[in-house]
């Protein structure tokens, strides 16, 4: 058979995109922000990231080995989940927090729903909400041994103060390990856009809706400093570029994506302005993820000629 010409129908040109390549691109795009976080907060934050990634991989491998499923350890999805979770944690958390978070993310949110492609909400975000609700004390402690200021820029803003927007853009501020540098996250996001790993619709509509919401209801009008601080602060950038664009939990159609991003922008605005905590991106993403099945239902494209038929 080898000597025969291989006759096959189209398509003849195939892309090499697989889950693994896409996930590696995401990891690569996250690297600048992660590296900056480690540079800013020191070697301990690297331990947090390593623990989160390690336990995500370990949980994935152990569960799949226990139930006899084909291992998806090498497709990189657990790696991305662990990395995203780690980057969304405060830099000085005790190490059992990323451990527990990763186990929850992979076991309860991803594998028990059927593994990759089957999870209802973003595992990293769900795990962060889980940790945030359970360990409010540890999860809101942003100050470290070296006397770094405790309050995050968003908390300062919420209490009526002003934040140093330039520092927030470059990342010389306080916050979670991977969310502080807007610049590094934007670089990663643009890399993903250029590589066509993600689509521009969700991040742009999300950020736009959120900005509009803040202008309308933020109480400070179109104050550019306040607006910029809200956009650069907290988990908004990492959420918009890396989490909201998750293939599994975002809608399929473009119309659906616009709707999803609108929801995200409004929910984030509501949680940030009127919620109990200063940040709200993780809750917004988890809530909007739960709405995705409904969004898909109303945005499903109609086949050609469907209009003429009367549906009983």
């Amino acid at each position, binding site marked *: 058979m080898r000597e025969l010409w291989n006759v096959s129908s189209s398509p003849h040109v195939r892309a090499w995109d697989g889950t693994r390549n896409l996930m590696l691109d995401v990891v690569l795009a996250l690297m600048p922000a992660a590296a900056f976080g480690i540079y800013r907060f020191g070697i301990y934050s690297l331990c947090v990231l390593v623990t989160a990634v390690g336990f995500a991989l370990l949980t994935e491998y152990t569960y799949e080995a226990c139930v006899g499923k084909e291992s998806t350890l090498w497709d990189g999805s657990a790696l991305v989940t662990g990395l995203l979770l780690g980057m969304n944690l405060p830099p000085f958390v005790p190490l059992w927090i990323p451990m527990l978070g990763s186990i929850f993310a992979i076991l309860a949110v991803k594998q028990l729903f059927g593994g990759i492609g089957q999870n209802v909400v973003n595992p990293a975000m769900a795990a962060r909400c*889980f940790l945030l*609700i359970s360990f409010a004390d540890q999860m809101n402690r942003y100050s470290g041994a070296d006397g770094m200021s405790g309050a995050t820029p968003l908390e300062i803003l919420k209490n009526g103060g002003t934040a140093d927007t330039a520092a927030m853009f470059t990342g010389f501020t306080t916050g979670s390990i991977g969310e502080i540098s807007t610049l590094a996250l934007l670089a990663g996001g643009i890399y993903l856009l250029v590589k066509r790993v993600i689509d521009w619709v969700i991040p742009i509509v999300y950020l736009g809706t959120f900005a509009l919401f803040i202008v309308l209801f933020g109480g400070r009008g179109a104050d550019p400093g306040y607006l910029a601080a809200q956009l650069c602060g907290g988990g908004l950038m990492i959420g918009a570029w890396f989490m909201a664009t998750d293939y599994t939990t975002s809608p399929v159609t473009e119309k659906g994506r616009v709707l999803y991003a609108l929801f995200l922008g409004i929910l984030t605005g509501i949680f940030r302005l009127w919620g109990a905590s200063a940040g709200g991106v993780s809750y917004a993403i988890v809530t909007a993820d739960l709405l995705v099945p409904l969004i898909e239902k109303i945005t499903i494209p109609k086949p050609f000629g469907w209009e003429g038929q009367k549906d009983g």
Partner: protein
Amino acid sequence: MNSYLERLYNGIVKENPTFILMLGMCPTLAVTTSAFNGLGMGLSTMAVLVVSNLIISALRNLIPDKVRIPAYIVIVASLVTVVQLLIQAYIPSLYDALGIYIPLIVVNCIILGRAEAYASKNPPLLAGFDGIGMGLGFSIALTCMGFFRELIGAGTVFSGTPFAYSLPEIYEPVSIFVLAPGAFLVLAFIIAFLNAMNIENNGRKKVEGCGGACGSCGKAENCDKRRKL
């Protein structure tokens, strides 16, 4: 006697109201923040259930079909009031902890469900045993949920009772488990575990039907019960 025992087995295991029938989800999710609350809720529901089953079964030929639901509600509501006043008088701490969920026993679907599905068609004694079985099943389920939620979420078990036990100081309570999301998590994990056990048992039975000797069976190639290697 056998059919009475069968009622108990049915209520506790085969048709467990919480884990199998999925009835009475409102108290199940809301009051199981501790093992003691779960047990208290389960036992008060059981008291109402046994007596209401007895009364409804005794009156089953007198209650007109068209107004049976209002009639059941009146009977159940009177019993719930009795239970509520008793709890308020003798276990005020439980009364405070359960709050609105005691009067809400009136609309617990387990009670109306058993009245409609069993008590209205069977003699009083059987109906009473059905109530005991279902009530025990409910109590065990709620105590079980409360046990896990309190243990993980607060690091204690049966706190405030003589049987109180608490985990060592070093344990950091995962407080989400005593909050609303924890109820869903624990319920889902328990049901998943029971279903997994169930599937495993049923799977084994299927193989036993033909001895499970697939290696020497000529039809193994086309058999959908073939043991996966």
